[in-house]
């Protein structure tokens, strides 16, 4: 992946694994939207070809963000932070200055990098980056309480740096933030019935369904979009990702896909 990005002309970038239904996020900087668009075209073709060989379909979504009015215009340093959150929010009014001021103030107070980006969509983008998840959550909480009544809806995607192999050094708490236990809900969609092989550590609770004990198609027993639910309790975000990865590799035949939701409060 890193090779593809470098060959595509992207030098400064963040490549992360995400929680949710999307698997990866790639963030890079470009002075021109036209150039960025061309790079995305190249990357999509390369990654698409790579994944096709593994019989995986590619499904991308793209956001162009422009830094407007912010004092944090030099943000390339922040892409070396391990944890990033992309907060999409729909403001009720078009006054950007208040949002920018709030974001700048929060960033200063918490000493966590947060940047407001303008997009063509009705949703605006806030990018938070920190060495640990606790820092991201702190900014997110402060931002949400400060902006109460100013935005209509919001949605957040958390990503963990994945340039190299995940290890315990990722998502390390700093002097500013206390390390806490993290919880995640993993929704599993089955493609075949049969018993799932669960990871040995980190599983707090597992909700099974009837399809596990029957030899029928999983779809027959399904009420909603997913079949099973798993609650994980781990110390680091990297551990959660590893646990989910282990679950999927051990049950390649049985699991169609998973969606992981990080719990906001604990």
């Amino acid at each position, binding site marked *: 992946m890193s090779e593809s990005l470098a060959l595509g002309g992207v030098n400064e970038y963040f490549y992360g694994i995400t*929680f*949710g*239904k*999307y698997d990866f996020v790639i963030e890079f900087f470009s002075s021109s939207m036209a150039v960025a*668009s061309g790079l*995305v075209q190249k990357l999509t073709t390369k990654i698409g070809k790579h994944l096709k060989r593994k019989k995986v379909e590619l*499904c*991308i*979504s*793209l*956001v*162009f963000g*422009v830094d*407007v*009015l912010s004092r944090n215009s030099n943000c390339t340093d922040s892409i070396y932070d391990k944890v990033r959150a992309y907060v*999409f929010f*729909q403001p009720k*009014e*078009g*006054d*950007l200055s208040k949002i920018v001021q709030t974001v700048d103030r929060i960033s200063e107070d918490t000493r966590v990098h947060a940047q407001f980006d*303008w*997009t*063509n*969509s*009705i*949703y605006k983008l806030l990018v938070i980056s920190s060495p640990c998840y606790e820092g991201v959550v702190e900014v997110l909480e402060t931002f949400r309480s400060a902006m109460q009544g100013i935005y*209509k*809806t*919001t*949605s957040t*995607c958390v990503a963990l740096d994945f340039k190299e192999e995940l290890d315990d050094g990722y998502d390390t708490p700093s002097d500013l933030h206390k390390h806490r236990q993290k919880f995640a809900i993993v929704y599993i969609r089955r493609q075949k019935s049969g018993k799932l092989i669960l990871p040995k550590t980190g599983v707090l609770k597992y909700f099974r369904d009837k399809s596990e004990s029957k030899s029928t198609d999983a779809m027959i027993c399904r009420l909603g979009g997913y079949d099973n639910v798993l609650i994980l309790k781990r110390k680091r975000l990297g551990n959660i990702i590893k646990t989910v990865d282990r679950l999927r590799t051990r049950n390649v035949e049985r699991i169609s896909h998973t*969606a992981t*939701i990080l719990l906001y409060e604990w």
Partner: protein
Amino acid sequence: MSYAAKVSMWESVRRLWTRFYGLAEDLRLLKDRWMYHARDLEPALPRINSTFETLEKAIMKIDRDFLRLFNFVRGIPIYPINLDGFRIDEPAQYLELEESVSNLEAYTGLLKLAFQQRTVSLEIPKITSGYPHSPERTVGNELVYIGADNVTMTFADTITHPSGILQSQWDGFVTFVPPITDELRYGAFCKKGPYGSYHIYMPEGAKYSITSYLLIAHEVGHISLLKPGRNKWHLRNEYENSKRILIKEVSRKIANVKSLNPQYCGECGFDFVNMVEDNSSLQNQIDEAFADIIGVRIGGIKTLEALLDSIPLSETPEHKSLSTKSFEIIMRANIVYKYVSTHHDRYGDLAFLRKRLTSLGEILKRYSQTKICLSCAKIYGKEIGEAILALEKENTGLFASFVDPKKEFAINSEEETRIICSLKDCIPCQHENICHILHCWMLASQKAKEHKERPSYPATLHSLAYNTSTRLRSIKENRSVDSIE
């Protein structure tokens, strides 16, 4: 009509009815979804109650037309034992019905496209649980659509019309459609919707160019020249009378050009006399020129410059000939230039426009298969422009009957400097008049020698989409009151 022909016609009408039935169902579903999502996505998805009401009326009317033709059982037309009740005697009746259904079908397509384009961002709150369904490469471009809607609303508000153009004619949203032919690749277009409404659409590629929004002024100019009739559209009386006089005057003048004007080259193959004799061509030219003049009066001189910018750059001398549309634009620009140069105190500095027209004239010279040479294009523009000026002199209220003099475009240098500075510094200026923002965007872009000097795209688009100027606020308030009523 023979019995066999009548049976065949019955079958055709039944097939048409099936098509219409599906279409009516589609529209009802679309209306429900539109109104439901409008709560969260307004103004990206505007509340267009009156448009849906109009569509329902159109459906009811077509339904009644079908109803009197068939014997129905449980909503399905049954095959008649004798065809006495089937009252289509001529194919023309069928064709009329088919046209109504086709119009409704085309309009439904535009509505569906608008809905799909404007709801792309609904995916965003579902990033943790859903696949992207968007065919757009970016997550959403709603600000572009809101900006275009606001621009149209402001331009339309400038028009004086007995029935109020916003309420009765423009349907309330702008769509960006993939161009089918080269002719539809540039500019803006207006299309007659069902039951006397008008829809403005632009080519997909134009949505990222703020300059192209100025072209909406020309389309609003077209709509202003028409008024709704009972069954079909009629030209506004005052305009119709003016046009009759104008055509007579232009015909008389141009007929003399060949013998009187020494500048007429007589070699370029453009036949003035033929053009005058071909009444529809001249009428069309005058319609377009009038719409241009109204466009300039509501959007400023930059609307004309934007029109000239829409001449495709790919039409280089290698292509040998310019398209007919580009020719028409150059000729029309000469007419409007004659008109505005007389009122230059109102429209400000015309040096840039003059330079642009000359350079386009030079391009014109290079084409071997051109229909008109530069000197003849100038004569053409001068003659029609002068005729319009003479008419305006006689009838001082001519343009006042179309454009509200109080809302006509006017900007002073102080306002210009303020807006340009703000846009260059990347600071949105939502409280400024939309016409002024567009004018300043184009002016600053033209003057910029380096990329750094250009006005900021995000700041400009944001100022258009989230505009809070007193003028737009009052238009929106009036509009929401009308939709409640």
